[in-house]
């Protein structure tokens, strides 16, 4: 069966609110435990070792790898992400994205490089270990550029180019003259 047909069949089930809500939940509670186990093994950690790094007992790690545990919390996931030295994204998205991600996911999606091995962070990693070269002027302010038509409702409209003095006591409201 093609994956597009699988997606089509599952999309039909999404018309039921209870189903689609449960599907979203299971993408966390049933999928993440396998990813936690994979990342743990990939990084050569035992459950006990992961527990030590994440600050939790081995028995908790065992529960985190159980798809029927069903009580993963954001704070726990943050601890685990930190222990693996990888990022964690939690966001509100359309159901269509949840479904497509679930159907078209490949085994490669389970692999997540640690910060030090992240190819997208090469520059940052080099900068950390390197020396800043050249003479630099002291910056006297930082500029925040607001996107067009941003829907911020305040007492006054914030200027698009806002220069904030480097004083720690200045607040956005003071600078904007609110």
């Amino acid at each position, binding site marked *: 069966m093609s994956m597009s047909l699988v997606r089509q069949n599952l999309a039909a*089930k999404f018309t039921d609110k*209870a*189903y689609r809500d*449960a599907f979203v939940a299971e993408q966390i509670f049933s999928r993440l435990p396998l990813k936690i186990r994979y990342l743990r093994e990939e990084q050569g950690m035992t459950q006990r070792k992961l527990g030590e790094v994440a600050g939790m007992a081995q028995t908790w790690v065992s529960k985190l790898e159980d*798809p*029927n545990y*069903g009580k993963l919390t954001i704070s726990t996931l943050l601890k685990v992400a930190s222990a693996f030295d990888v990022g964690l994204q939690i966001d509100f998205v359309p159901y269509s994205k949840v479904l497509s991600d679930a159907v078209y*996911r490949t085994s490669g*999606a389970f692999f997540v490089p640690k910060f030090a091995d992240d190819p997208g962070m090469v520059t940052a990693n080099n900068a950390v270990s390197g020396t800043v070269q050249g003479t630099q002027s002291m910056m006297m302010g930082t500029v925040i550029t607001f996107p067009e038509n941003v829907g911020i409702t305040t007492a006054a409209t914030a200027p698009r180019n806002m220069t904030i003095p480097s004083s720690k006591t200045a607040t956005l409201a003071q600078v904007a003259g609110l």
Partner: protein
Amino acid sequence: MNVIRQWSLTLPQAAQAKLDTIILVLQVSPIWPWPAQYVSTLRGYKGIYELRVGSSGVQYRPLGCHGPGKKQFTILIGSVEKGGKLPKSDCEVAVERRKIILDYEGRTCEHEFS
């Protein structure tokens, strides 16, 4: 007639979602054999495995086997734990169906997710 589809459609929506998700996850699992928290051997019934699908306090246990082809797993019967045990008759049906599908591949079809 697809006996597995017939069974899965009788499940509550949350259980269906969990079963669908677990199958999707196992299809791309980089871990092999699958972790026992997801799929475990059924003690006393050689070659039969149970998918561990717990939902709202009910332990759904689709029973299956590896095959008939390489990298294939066939769900043979849908079962539900009662008092911590699976009905013996369901396990025996799984054993019978395993023999049938391993002898004659034409008695299986792709999982439909519907």
